[in-house]
């Protein structure tokens, strides 16, 4: 029983046990869930530098189902368990008010364990089985809140189900072509396959992983799903679940299809790589500006997740060692700061009784300082302010992209400024400005929500200042995928074209901060003053009407909103209506009169005989 089998056994066993314990007593179940996720984190941490494959099950028509661990799957598994554990801790308080919590915990742990299964899968069949379990358990969790969540859940499941059907077709066509489903053997067989077959495989897997990764054409389901899912789960959903698509892309591009062939796949102009790059670039640009339009905090974050997935896609699809390291590191940093942001927004939603609309919040910094610091650090990570992990990963991506294709770098850099705008709108509308009357008696964030926030903020800064820690593991991945390794030092990269040194930067910024703080201290003491004592041209500050945060970037939005209608969202809706319309039409065949039915039978026979007489095809 290798570590991997124990891990999956404990994970899936834990799910059953949580549900049963939930029947007995909720506090017992909560502690068990937290302990279980901690144990999972420890098990995976212990499997740090191991690689290996074991066949763990032959029951499925004798096809060997294999579990595999290498540095790539280790880093993904580590993030999944880490974020899963934090979201369980986060949901202790969040779920207290809601009913059917044991169902929620069981599903949350089921999603986490099925993601671990995906990541550890050694062959495509195991991958597909865990992929499907993840899909339908996410569906149950997304539509957990009822009401609008149901439409969001339906849209999610239909798109992801279509994706997994495409994946099934791909897997089975590989099975029929090579007779085996083990990834290592497929990689060997793949080089011999015809390029048409390879393109088909890439397209099919691309659709499946594109839907999950919310790449630009397949992103329609994500905003509603994120906004409606309960906050602890939307932290997992946007942090880690989206990244299963990333894992899938890495798998198909570099392992199944292999590095050499991927780079030259497809024609000169329309090569798969350039299409992916262009899709990644569009995924950065369009959602960033759509995020500006959003008034719901979680929808804004959802659109920003899509945008950041575009960055990761750029990093991975570009195909040099620096860009791959940048892509994986950006995945890691995005998981950390995006779940931090979702948790803080969840805490605000929890404390203000479910208000997520950015126009009716404000001034919460005085009431919820912890949530503010969490959001501030998360936002700095999202933008990529130096000293945060977002900066390091974006720097890596740009460094590799700049000389190859400056246009893509331009799109990515301009996307950063779009990120600045919408993330500032998030932090300004929730925490700064005047505190409205109805939010007067909001208390601070509960303890169980503070803990994950502190840990995640600490990780954002730690990986920002000492990027060597994650980069050492990522270097192993880069090497295992067939690139040449980078020389990593603890605080940055010593690469050929200009190096990154975070410690000097950190020291410089720290010195600057201290100097300016002292300079401020020279000045006379300042008087703390409440929000009413404000300049209002001599008049008294009107209560509750001075909270000017509505339509924050109106001049810009009036210029660009006509271009931002979501054509794909309406496209999918049209397809749904079309099927509905078509099926109503077809149902009319069964008219309800027996005469018609018998006439059908006779018609069938006469048609057959007529065809036989005329052409006798049989």
């Amino acid at each position, binding site marked *: 029983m290798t570590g991997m089998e124990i891990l999956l056994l404990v994970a899936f066993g834990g799910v059953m046990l949580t549900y049963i314990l939930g029947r007995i007593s909720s506090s017992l179940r909560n502690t068990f869930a937290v302990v279980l996720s901690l144990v999972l984190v420890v098990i995976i941490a212990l499997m740090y530098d191991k690689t290996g494959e074991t066949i763990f099950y032959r029951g499925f028509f004798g096809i060997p189902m294999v579990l595999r661990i290498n540095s790539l799957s280790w880093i993904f598994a580590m993030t999944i368990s880490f974020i899963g554990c934090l979201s369980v801790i986060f949901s202790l308080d969040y779920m207290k008010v809601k009913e059917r919590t044991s169902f929620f915990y069981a599903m949350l742990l089921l999603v986490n364990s099925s993601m671990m299964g995906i990541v550890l899968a050694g062959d495509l069949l195991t991958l597909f089985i865990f992929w499907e379990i993840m899909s339908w358990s996410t569906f149950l969790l997304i539509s957990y809140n009822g009401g609008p969540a149901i439409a969001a859940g339906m849209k999610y499941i239909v798109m992801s189900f279509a994706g997994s059907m495409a994946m099934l077709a791909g897997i089975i066509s590989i099975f029929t072509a090579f007779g085996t489903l083990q990834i290592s053997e497929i990689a060997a067989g793949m080089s011999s396959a015809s390029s048409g077959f390879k393109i088909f495989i890439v397209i099919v897997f691309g659709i499946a992983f594109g839907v999950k990764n919310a790449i630009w054409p397949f992103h329609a389901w994500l905003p509603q799903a994120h906004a409606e899912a309960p906050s602890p789960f939307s932290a997992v959903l946007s942090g880690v679940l989206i990244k299963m698509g990333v894992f899938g892309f890495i798998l198909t591009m570099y392992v199944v299809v292999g590095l050499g062939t991927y780079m030259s796949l497809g024609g000169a102009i329309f090569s798969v790589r350039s299409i992916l790059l262009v899709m990644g670039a569009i995924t950065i640009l369009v959602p960033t500006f759509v995020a500006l339009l959003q008034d719901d905090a979680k929808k804004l974050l959802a659109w920003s997740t899509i945008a950041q997935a575009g960055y990761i896609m750029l990093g991975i699809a570009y195909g040099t060692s620096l860009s791959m390291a940048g892509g994986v590191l950006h995945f890691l940093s995005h998981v950390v700061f995006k779940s931090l942001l979702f948790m803080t927004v969840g805490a605000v939603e929890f404390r203000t009784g479910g208000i997520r609309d950015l126009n009716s919040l404000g001034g919460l910094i005085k009431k919820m300082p912890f949530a503010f610091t969490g959001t501030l650090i998360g936002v700095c990570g999202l933008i990529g302010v130096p000293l945060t992990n977002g900066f390091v990963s974006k720097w890596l991506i740009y460094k590799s992209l700049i000389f190859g294709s400056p246009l893509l770098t331009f799109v990515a850099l301009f996307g950063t400024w779009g990120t600045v705008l919408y993330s500032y709108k998030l932090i300004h509308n929730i925490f700064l400005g005047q505190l409205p009357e109805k939010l007067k008696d909001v208390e601070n964030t509960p303890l169980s929500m503070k803990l994950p926030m502190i840990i995640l903020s600490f990780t954002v800064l730690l990986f920002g200042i000492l990027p060597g820690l994650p980069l050492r593991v990522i270097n192993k991945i880069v090497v295992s995928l067939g690139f040449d390794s980078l020389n990593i030092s603890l605080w940055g990269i010593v690469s050929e074209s200009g190096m990154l040194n975070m410690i000097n930067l950190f020291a410089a910024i720290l010195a600057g901060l201290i100097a300016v703080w002292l300079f401020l201290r020279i000045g006379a003491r300042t008087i703390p003053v409440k929000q009413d004592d404000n300049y209002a041209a001599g008049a008294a500050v009107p209560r509750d009407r001075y909270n000017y945060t509505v339509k924050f970037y109106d001049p810009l939005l009036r210029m660009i909103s006509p271009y931002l209608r979501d054509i794909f969202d309406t496209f999918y809706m049209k397809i749904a209506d079309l099927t*509905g319309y078509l099926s109503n039409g077809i149902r009319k065949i069964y008219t309800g009169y027996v005469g018609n039915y018998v006439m059908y039978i006779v018609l069938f026979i006469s048609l057959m005989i007529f065809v036989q007489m005329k052409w006798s095809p049989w």
Partner: protein
Amino acid sequence: MVNPVLLIAVPLGLAFMVPLIDSASRKLTRFVPVAALLFNLILCIRLIPAVLENPIVINLGGFTPPFGINLFVGPLGLLFAGLISLAGLVVSIYSLSYIKNGPVVKYHMLYMLLLTGATGVVLTGDLFNLFVFFEILCISSYALVAYHGDRAGIESSIKYLIQGTVGSGLLLIGIGFIYGIFGTLNMADIAMKIATVEQSTLFVPMILMVAGLGVESAIFPLNAWLPDAHSSAPSSISAILSGIAIEVGLYAVARIVFTVFGISDIYLFFAFLGILTLLIGEMCAFAQSNIKRMLAYSSIGQIGLILFALALATNNTVTGGLFQLVNHTFSKGLLFLSAGYMIYRSGSMEISSLNGMGKRMPLTSLAFTVGAFSLVGLPPFAGFPGKFLIVSGALLKGEMVINILVGLVLLSTVIEGTYFFRVIQALYFKDGNGEQRKQAPATAVTAMIALMILIVALGVYPKFLADFLSSASSDLLDKMSYVGSVLK
């Protein structure tokens, strides 16, 4: 070694004993079908080892095959017999508590007759005998559809009756043709002599017989009766109808096309017909708001898929088709049974009335969810191996046309997923009018749990059924071994 004839004789005898037992003591009648089917199930299980070596052929009344009637119990026949007895047993346990009011005696008698007819069709080796058992099956199902006696029940059973009789009439004409040409009614004999006759003359009888049996097995143009019959019949009966009756019809069509006629170039047409039925079934189900009609249309869809799998006529796809058939019997049965009690509790068949059922009847909704997930083909449940085999077998053939059809199959699975998930969302995530929690009665729950265990077991460890199914598919496909064992 027990004589397989008992498989037919015992349920037939007990069926006619039911009124006598009823006059003796009211309570006992409900348990008669359970006993009969339990006996059948045990008998089938004991026959498995014997059948696996070589099929058992019994000549009724001692006459040798070309003249006498013979039973042919091969792995395929036994598979169906076992399936019928198992599903019948579970439904009979379910209907212990479900059927209380109305003519209970007639229900149980007709129920036994229906199952006898089904077992007879599956085991017989003689064409006319097939027609006789087929008639028993149809007539008892006409009557059972009208069991509730309400307006919808009677109307749909009359429609079913008219279509069924037209079908049987065509079947009879077909058999007459064959008898005219070959002078014999024994399938093996006909199969042997088939080569002597010129193919175009054989076409008309084949189409007539296929159309006749097709009406019962719900192939596209002929299945107009199914939605009304299944939705107005009591749930236990619609479970049996879509679980067993259609499958038996399909077996008969397959037996005739494969073994009796064996014209291989018509298979592609049946594949197209199967896909057509699948798409139409799924589309109509998508547009339904009444839960039982939705399940009925989804049965049409599944039958289309199985027909497509059988029509591809390679060992792999036929095994997949049979696996999907077994899965369909169990999960569709589970869906109908659980829907039965939910409708009984909520009062109306509309999906909107099922809102919030997850809280009121948690176990029944769980059963419904498991059934839905397995029918759609999600991994841990029985549907996934079936679909996996069908799709891999189809792609193995490698023809471009088949690949496109497989694409359509996957597309229809997406549609199927949509309307099943819509119902699941209604069950769990829409809040109903909040009556307090009230579970289904004990017998119904045991029936559902049994089916659930079967589904999950098949889903997790499909290997144990796989070898039995592959021998059954080889029994269906190669004509020579069938003829050899009958006319040895």
